[in-house]
């Protein structure tokens, strides 16, 4: 059975609106106007045990709202979701004991207390038997190399150290499902890599399923075989990470090394870069092989590669509003549906 099953999930927020100015402020005192904001609209997907799924989207796409619904913090406005067989928002203890939520921008350890004391509190709350607790704590502390930090108060830790301690605290009860909302936000590259490696290792060891949002594509590339891309609360793409460019990117790049550094290259595509004989050209995806053949025919070529554009660029393109509709149409015509 899938760990996470989501069907037509929807969340509408009612937010007060008022125009600028004193008059509007006074009017809003007695007649408040509201506007409905659809944060999440008709999401459906499943996550199988042990899967690591990247949940991607620009700010305001509905990622955090979805994670909050799946971890039981928010009621949906419509649709259904089951995590480990439970309706999350009922917040049954059996459910809460088996999942964890880590939010990179929020602290759940006690600010003034040494890290070990917060761990101890979690032991009491999750009722982890002493031996299991110590084994889990020692293993996690060891994996994240924070042995010398745990006796310090949280407020004395650097951002990266704090995040590592947060993650240990969130995993002491060995959750089967992990919701990670920007776990590497604000960290330097080395620390991001450390946490990423750890999460991969933890997933392999524990078989826990992971749903991860991150603005750092490196996190997604390193951890997720599958991604769900959402925009304006709707799923744009759900499938293998490797297939994302095929579906969404409208172009490919051809890099050629030409014997003649000054060869005329009009009519092949958009020249992105030219460095002596080494030229990078962007061409429509469907024309890539034809253009490559032409280049090989018409010039003396010592080397040629055809590549998808970098994932960062693909994602950026999906999220830029102008292309979103087109991307959405492209994806829908490919009917990715929900994987799994």
């Amino acid at each position, binding site marked *: 059975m899938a760990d996470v099953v989501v069907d037509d999930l929807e969340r509408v*927020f009612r937010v007060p609106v008022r125009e600028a100015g004193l008059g509007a402020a006074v009017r809003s005192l007695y007649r408040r106007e509201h506007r409905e904001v659809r944060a999440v609209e008709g999401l459906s997907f499943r996550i199988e045990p042990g899967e690591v799924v990247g949940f991607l989207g620009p700010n305001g796409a509905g990622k955090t709202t979805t994670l*909050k619904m799946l971890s039981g913090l928010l*009621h949906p406005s419509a649709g259904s979701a089951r995590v480990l067989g439970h309706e999350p928002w009922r*917040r049954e203890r059996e459910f809460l004991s088996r999942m964890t939520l880590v939010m990179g921008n929020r602290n759940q350890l006690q600010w*003034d207390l040494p890290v070990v*004391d917060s761990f101890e509190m979690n032991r009491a709350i*999750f009722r982890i038997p002493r031996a299991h607790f110590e084994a889990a704590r020692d293993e996690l502390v060891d994996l994240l190399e924070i042995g010398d930090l745990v006796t310090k108060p949280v407020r004395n830790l650097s951002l990266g150290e704090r995040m590592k301690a947060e993650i240990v605290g969130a995993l002491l009860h060995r959750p089967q499902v992990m919701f990670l909302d920007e776990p590497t936000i604000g960290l330097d590259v080395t620390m991001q890599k450390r946490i990423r490696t750890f999460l991969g290792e933890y997933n392999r060891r524990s078989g826990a399923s992971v749903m991860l949002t991150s603005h750092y594509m490196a996190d997604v590339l390193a951890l997720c075989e599958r991604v769900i891309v959402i925009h304006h609360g709707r799923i744009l793409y759900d499938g293998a990470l490797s297939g994302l460019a095929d579906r969404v990117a409208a172009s490919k790049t051809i890099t050629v090394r030409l014997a003649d550094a000054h060869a005329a290259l009009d009519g092949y595509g958009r020249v992105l870069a030219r460095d002596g004989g080494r030229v990078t050209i962007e061409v429509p995806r469907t024309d890539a092989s034809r253009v490559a053949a032409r280049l090989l025919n018409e010039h003396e070529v010592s080397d040629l590669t055809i590549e998808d554009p970098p994932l960062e660029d693909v994602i950026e393109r999906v999220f830029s509003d102008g292309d979103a509709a087109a991307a959405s149409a492209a994806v829908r015509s490919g009917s990715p549906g929900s994987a799994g």
Partner: protein
Amino acid sequence: MGREPGIVRTYLRVGTLFELQYRVNFFLQLVQSLVALGTAVAVIALVFSYTDDLAGWSPYELLVIVGVHVLLGGVIRAFIQPSMQRLMEDIREGTFDHVLVKPADAQLLASVQQFSIWQLVDVVVGAAVIAVAVANLDTGLGPLDAGAFALTLVLGAVTIYCFWLLITVGAFWIVRMEFVAELFNGLYQAGRWPVTIYPAWLQIGFTVLIPLAFAITVPAEALTGRLGGTMVLAALGFTAAIVAVTRWAWRRGLRRYDGASA
């Protein structure tokens, strides 16, 4: 429900160990308590320099009230207020999420998350004042009175906890509630006097709206031979009612927080 005592014990232990690091707070608190007590006693002495009897209360009987007031104030500032203020902050900043995703009763977790043990100095000082005052009373103190005192004091503490939580729950609707602590501490000062000295409308206010009567005057009545069985029952009934209302308001607040009502 079996895990709750374990949670409270762990939070208490960890909180106590933490506060023990700051021993200078103990001395600051002691000085503060003694100054406050000195002021209270001076005011009583001043009042009784003009009269022998205040609404039927003698000087030592009033000292009992001062003692209960100090003692309960210590309990409030040690166990109730810190967690409530933390809860308001958590709701405002969204960190309350972390309380909700824990597999334990959220009200309990929110209510025990912070202690201020040095405030217990007031509990000791209050108890000492009560002891001195009772020793100087003409009426003797039987075991039944002592039992009634202990019972009504616990009920009073529960009542004040519920009152605080009821107000704090307001943060689910009105985000900024920090002024409440000041407001409460201001009103709490009124509890230094028996509620019977106030006009009728204020007496009702101090009984039902801000339950100072049940929290302070009633336990003091137990020690001064004024408390009847009916009042004990009334205190029991009132506490049960406010506990139920608080639980109900808490659930409503949670529903608002997670948007179930939206």
